């Protein structure tokens, strides 16, 4: 079995797709030589040269807007913003332009713009380099939002993004960059909107994505020893959101915990909780619990950062609370 890191599986997807389709190009800052701030495109610049790996000035609005113009006229840009926080210089281009262009022009244009950036807290990245904005993007009609948690998924989801015709917010997590895992040798793509059961269980469903998948799996292992069988579902994309898979699991387990690193307040977990409440309320034996970051600006101090971001213990605590009163 072949193992790759999350970062190198991503680069492999880009390399294979760029070889397949000459209209795919990457633009971003510090990409061609350095391979991006997370080494996410290491060696891509060497292979494809400056025509297809385009270093730009730090001009987020122009980078994202230019990607849109290029997509409308037949190219397939991968716009690399390095840090997710840097989207904010281009939110008009993302929300008012890219997300709306197919609808407002009645389907006359395709808009295969992919924007990749790293989200999440990591080693004191602080107030302006550690944010997770997926709820904003998922809230906006016209955007797909992919949040891969494994090397296998990052490659398969990126291939789907690059072979589709729609804009994709491709959000990778900083702390997953060096995560190793099995990546199939054969060509494969993972469809959007299909969550995956990464650990079957019978007592409680944990719906999660990105960095919180591995933390939820660690939590599930601890809970298993306590005699609680947790089913862990990796959503993989949060737009589209595979609510059917979660509902199906909840019908079986009767309990739901949702875990993400982004703020609990106004997070995608609230949307999932409300939707599951609307559809399978009768099956629930306990209130739905959410795990997410505290509603605070992110500090630099490692201790303070840890106090804000959720970990496996928070997942365990949430599961224990929905199991309360149940003899296990």
């Amino acid at each position: 079995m072949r193992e790759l890191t999350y970062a190198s599986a991503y680069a492999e997807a880009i390399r294979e797709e760029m070889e397949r389709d000459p209209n795919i190009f990457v633009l971003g800052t510090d990409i061609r030589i350095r391979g991006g701030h997370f080494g996410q495109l290491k060696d891509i610049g060497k292979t494809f040269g400056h025509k297809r790996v385009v270093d730009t000035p730090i001009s987020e609005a122009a980078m994202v807007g230019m990607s849109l113009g290029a997509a409308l006229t037949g190219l397939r840009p991968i716009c690399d913003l390095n840090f997710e926080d840097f989207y904010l210089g281009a939110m008009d281009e993302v929300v008012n332009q890219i997300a709306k262009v197919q609808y407002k022009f009645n389907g006359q244009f395709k808009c295969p713009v992919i924007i990749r950036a790293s989200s999440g807290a990591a080693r004191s990245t602080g107030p302006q380099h550690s944010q997770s904005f997926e709820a904003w993007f998922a809230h906006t009609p016209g955007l797909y939002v992919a949040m891969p948690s494994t090397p296998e998924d990052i490659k398969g989801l990126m291939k789907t993004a690059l072979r589709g015709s729609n804009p994709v917010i491709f959000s990778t997590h900083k702390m997953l960059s060096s995560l190793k895992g099995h990546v199939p040798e054969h060509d494969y793509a993972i469809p959007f909107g299909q969550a995956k059961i990464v650990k079957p269980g019978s007592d409680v469903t944990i719906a999660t994505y990105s960095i919180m998948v591995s933390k939820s799996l660690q939590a599930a292992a601890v809970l298993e020893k306590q005699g609680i069988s947790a089913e862990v579902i990796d959503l993989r994309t949060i737009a589209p959101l595979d609510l059917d898979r979660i509902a199906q699991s909840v019908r079986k387990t009767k309990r739901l915990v949702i875990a993400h690193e982004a703020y609990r307040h106004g997070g995608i977990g609230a949307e999932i909780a409300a939707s599951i409440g609307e559809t399978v309320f009768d099956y629930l034996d306990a209130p739905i619990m959410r795990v997410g970051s505290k509603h605070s600006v992110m500090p630099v101090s490692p201790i303070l950062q840890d106090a804000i971001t959720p970990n496996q213990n928070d997942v365990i605590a949430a599961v224990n609370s929905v199991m309360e009163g149940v003899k296990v």
Partner: protein
Amino acid sequence: MSISSQDARQEGRYSFDSFDSQLLKRFLKEMLRIRVFEQRAEELTLSGKVVGGVHLAIGQEAVAVGVMMALKEEDYVTGPHRGHHILIAKGLETSKLMAELLGKETGIVGGRGGSMHMADASKGMLGVNGIVGASIVIATGAAFTAQYLIRDQAAVAFFGDGGANKGQFHESLNMASIFKLPAIYVCENNQYAVETSVEYSTAAEHIADRGAGYRMPGVIVDGLDVLDVYSAAKEARLRAGSGEGPTLIEAKTYRFKGHSIGDLENYRTREEVQEWMKNDPIIRLKLSMEELGLLDENGWNAMKTEVEQEIEAAVQFAVNSPEPNVETVMDHNFSAEVTEHA
């Protein structure tokens, strides 16, 4: 090419005699088509038939027509919220544009966009835009495509004096210049961003002066003179096509109407408006052509009748068109195209 702050006529950018009468008639007719379309759009707005906000470009016809006639048909164009003149000059059908203003199914974008969001992929018209400054970045990307695919295409962004104060303007001009993109940035300086005058909002005396900061020609043209606009755009198109990079053109122009229909216009005087209207680009060209014996009363009347008939037919088409089918309301948020290989 002249670099900013020069009066066009002093430069002698063109001589009237170098234009043949057929081309002059096309300039005149295109401007007239826009004018009549907009006048009818105003009437339909005031009678409540138009849905959504409408921003008229009456007075600015020469900018769109002058630029577009200098382009190749396959060149890409983007525009701002005030864009009917740009869409018509780019060759979009007036009937579909009028139907769009009425929110009809037969509208150019099926009633989804209205006045501020019209486009035609088949004609390289990448859309007018409800957000000030957005046209600039999108055209920059289209110019990137032309360069990437090594096609003889240019991309033109139209925007106003308001757009020139957005970050998108500065980011795009810098990016286009370092990459030598075949882009043409056309600022229609109509003197007001909604109610805010350009003197108040803009530190530079001329927006064209900003071209120097991005190492590209910044050219001032008389935006009420279609031949001056055309001549400058022709040079910019040549530059774009020969790999010399982008050009910034500032067309000094004026909107004879308010920001949008219903604007009380208490930020400018009637005298100021009338002063600019003395230079109406359509009347100006008509008179020049008459003086040179290139147009007579009969020729003018025939042109007017033809244009009025076209626009009247567009209005009838729009009024008689069906409303959009409600069942399609969710269509096109995403492309339905099935993912290959997935």
